[in-house]
């Protein structure tokens, strides 16, 4: 692939990713917001593939596709106005948020031009995916396994948190902690 074509594809992905990322917070429909976010992630996944991390890029797209579908379902379940039939503008501290977002963008975007990166071009890996696979099941297996255990405990924790019967009774009834008045627990 020649450089010009790679550049064109990169800028297309980059522009698509940033615009859809902005549209997430500019659309009336929360369903659409979820799919705009998915589009933004797909753009980043495309850039990752261009950068030579094919595996990470594809995993990012696949993972986000599943996650955004779950997100869309959560939107329909909990949020008012998921279809965007009415205009939606649910923001607080908007000016502060715009300033913080623009400020962090300017700060982070200026860093690459202030830092002097070492310019010894490293040889691109021939088979990055195969090397990553060997790394996952070789030297970095402990990291990989730890990530797996962390995900498992997250699953268990999420089920416990989202469970209807809370620690102090059914969630819909308030799940209130028992009182700690002196003498209240002395009946046993």
């Amino acid at each position, binding site marked *: 692939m020649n450089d010009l074509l790679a550049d064109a594809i*990169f800028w297309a992905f980059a522009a698509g990713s940033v615009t859809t990322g902005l549209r997430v917070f500019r659309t009336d429909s929360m369903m659409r917001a979820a799919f705009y976010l998915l589009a933004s992630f797909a753009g980043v996944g495309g850039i990752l593939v261009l950068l030579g*991390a094919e595996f990470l890029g594809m995993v990012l797209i696949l993972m986000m596709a599943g996650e955004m579908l779950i997100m869309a379902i959560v939107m329909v379940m909990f949020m008012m106005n998921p279809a965007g039939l009415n205009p939606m503008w649910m923001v607080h501290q908007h000016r502060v948020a715009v300033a913080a977002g623009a400020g*962090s963008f*300017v700060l982070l975007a200026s860093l690459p031009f202030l830092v002097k990166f070492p310019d010894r*071009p490293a040889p691109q890996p021939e088979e990055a995916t195969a090397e990553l696979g060997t790394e*996952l099941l070789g030297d*970095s297996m402990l990291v990989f396994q730890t990530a797996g255990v962390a995900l498992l405990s997250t699953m268990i924790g999420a089920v416990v948190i989202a469970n209807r019967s809370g620690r102090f009774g059914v969630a819909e009834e308030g799940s209130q902690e028992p009182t700690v008045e002196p003498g209240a627990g002395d009946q046993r």
Partner: protein
Amino acid sequence: MTLEAVLVVAAALVGIGVYGALSQQSFVMLMMGLELMINGAILALVALWSASAGGNPQGQMLGVVFMTVMAVEMALGFALVTNVYRVRRADITEKLRRLKG
């Protein structure tokens, strides 16, 4: 496709994420802001890996860890949204002014 260009795109994604996480009232939209921030972080990480540590797969390993963080954040976020809605009927941040009761 220079390193600087990719890092600027990553910075734009992080900036949008900061804006979204600070400005949105709805919990799920707030989480979308967090996701966008991690998205930008992954992009910057892989750009630096590709430009500097070519051939070293441990950089990609860190990317896998980032994705795990993203999945954990998402799963626990959804669980908390479900629980908060059940207990307090709250779906926007303004309805949660107190941590207790």
